[in-house]
């Protein structure tokens, strides 16, 4: 038994068991006894109690049912364990990868001042000046009416829509991966927290902190819009329109279903919550690669359509191969790796054509 007789108000306040009684009504009988045995402490106890209640303040009643409901919503929003189990053997890959959906429309050509466009994609020209390789930028412009797939040096992939242009260095620096975009594009970025992925577009800089999101910008109305699908995305205003150090002025971290409207003229950002994070009319944007005993040929067809790929394979050899998996935001190369691992196949890329060789499935 504590020596309550010599207690002062502050001692009562510090007494955890006393607080449990005041706040949660615990050990009621015990405390009524204490009160009876220590009548001189009644005033101290009462003052301590009032202080504690004042500290607690008004509290909403939040029922257990309400908590369960909220927790249920959270649990529903996270990936299902069963689906992940199917992907068990490639989980390693899966986790390293995050996709970024960047859909951008009509930007000023401010970033295209540099004209030293050299190596085209896939050109293995060896530079004698290794240092200058990071300074050598590649520009790809999709002049076709189809979508065009671009593979970046880090394994990330980008789908360019008609008239979209993408600039990227031959080698990314160790600190960050920087690309410049004009037009509409869909990005799938390899996750690497040590080396953030930055997209410069108009006066807005988009930085990927991890996982996936969607972006859209409209040149016509001076506004850039961005909506997060999942995960976290950081957006900032690039004051001068140049990517010089310290140029960023405002930063905004966006989370799922949050949309920001960036006004390019007065550099303001207005955030709000939206119901659907879908933005542009690319098939891949809203695509869920969910396969359940799907014939391999159909899976390839789906990839071909989505990414504008040309995949060649022996129809007879893979006739019995099926895929059960849910693919997400991985770059296209990771998707192909996963699929080929499952059916024990191999693939190589030649002149933009993907050649798949498979021993077949029984």
């Amino acid at each position, binding site marked *: 038994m504590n020596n309550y007789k010599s207690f002062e*108000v*502050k001692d009562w*306040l510090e007494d*955890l068991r006393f*607080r*449990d009684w005041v*706040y*949660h*009504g615990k050990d*009621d009988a015990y405390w*009524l006894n204490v*009160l009876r045995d220590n009548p001189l402490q*009644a*005033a101290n*106890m*009462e*003052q301590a*109690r*009032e*202080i*504690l*209640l*004042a*500290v*607690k*303040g*008004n*509290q*909403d009643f*939040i029922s*257990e049912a309400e*908590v*369960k409901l*909220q*927790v249920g*919503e*959270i*649990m529903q*929003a*996270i990936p299902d*364990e069963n689906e992940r189990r199917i992907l068990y053997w490639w989980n390693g890959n899966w*986790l390293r990868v995050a996709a970024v959906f960047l859909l951008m429309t009509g930007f000023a050509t401010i970033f295209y001042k540099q004209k030293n466009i050299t190596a085209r994609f896939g050109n293995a020209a060896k530079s004698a000046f290794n240092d200058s390789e990071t300074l050598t930028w590649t520009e790809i412009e999709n002049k076709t009416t189809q979508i065009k797939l671009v593979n970046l040096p880090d394994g990330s992939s980008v789908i360019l829509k008609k008239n979209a242009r993408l600039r990227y260095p031959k080698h990314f620096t160790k600190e960050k991966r920087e690309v410049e975009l004009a037009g509409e594009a869909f990005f799938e970025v390899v996750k690497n927290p040590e080396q953030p992925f930055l997209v410069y577009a108009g006066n807005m800089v988009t930085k990927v902190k*991890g*996982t996936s999101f969607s972006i859209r910008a409209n040149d016509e109305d001076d506004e850039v819009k961005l909506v997060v699908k*999942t*995960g*976290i995305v950081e957006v900032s205003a690039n004051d001068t329109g140049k990517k010089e150090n310290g140029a960023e002025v405002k930063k*905004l*971290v966006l*989370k*799922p279903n949050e949309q920001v409207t960036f006004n390019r003229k007065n550099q*303001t*950002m*207005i*955030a709000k*919550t939206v119901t659907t994070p879908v933005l542009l009319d690319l098939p891949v944007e809203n695509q869920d690669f969910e396969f359940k005993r799907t014939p391999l040929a159909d899976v390839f067809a789906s990839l071909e359509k989505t990414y504008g790929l040309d995949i060649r394979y022996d129809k007879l050899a893979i006739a019995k191969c099926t895929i059960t998996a849910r693919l997400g935001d991985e770059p296209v190369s990771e998707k192909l790796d996963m699929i080929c691992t499952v059916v024990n196949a191999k693939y190589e890329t030649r002149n933009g054509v993907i050649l798949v060789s498979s021993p077949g499935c029984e």
Partner: protein
Amino acid sequence: MKHSERLPEAYLTTRWQQFCRGDKTAFGEITEHNYAALYHYGTRFTPDRDMIKDCLQDLFLELWEKKESLSYISAIKPYLFQSLRNNLIHRIRRQSVFSEIKGDDPFDDISPESDWIVNETDQLTATRLKKAIDSLPRRQKEALYLKYYENLSYDEIASVMGLQRQAVANYLQYGIQKLRDYLQHVTIFLALFFSMG
């Protein structure tokens, strides 16, 4: 008051480590165990209940996404409180800044005085207690809440609120003194004890 039921610390730590390794059930348990306490803490900052719930959803989803990198955390509750606090303040600031409702420090104007009404005792006492707590600056109120209602240590409060330990000690000392002065003239007591049940 489910959240106040103290599960053994070792159990919670184990569950946390399981969650970090991808155990969804452990994650659900952690979420449920902390939800109400975090929600109530959130009401200290904004009257917007939906915003608090949104923030909590984001917080836990983010937690799940970066679970692999969270195994170093030993003080779970302070970590969660700190995360919620940062998220809420960030959101509240952003709302006010970007909707051009500018104050020098919008955050200092957030806590609505009406939120501190004590509803457990009769109206007269409630008013008196509310007046007492309202006489304190917001941070003092917050430090007191974390210390006495949430049983956090000085160091934990310091990390949650981003303060030096000494600043926390000062807040608590002045806060209590002020409340005591305010309530000094208390003369009624016994009846209140029996009304608690």
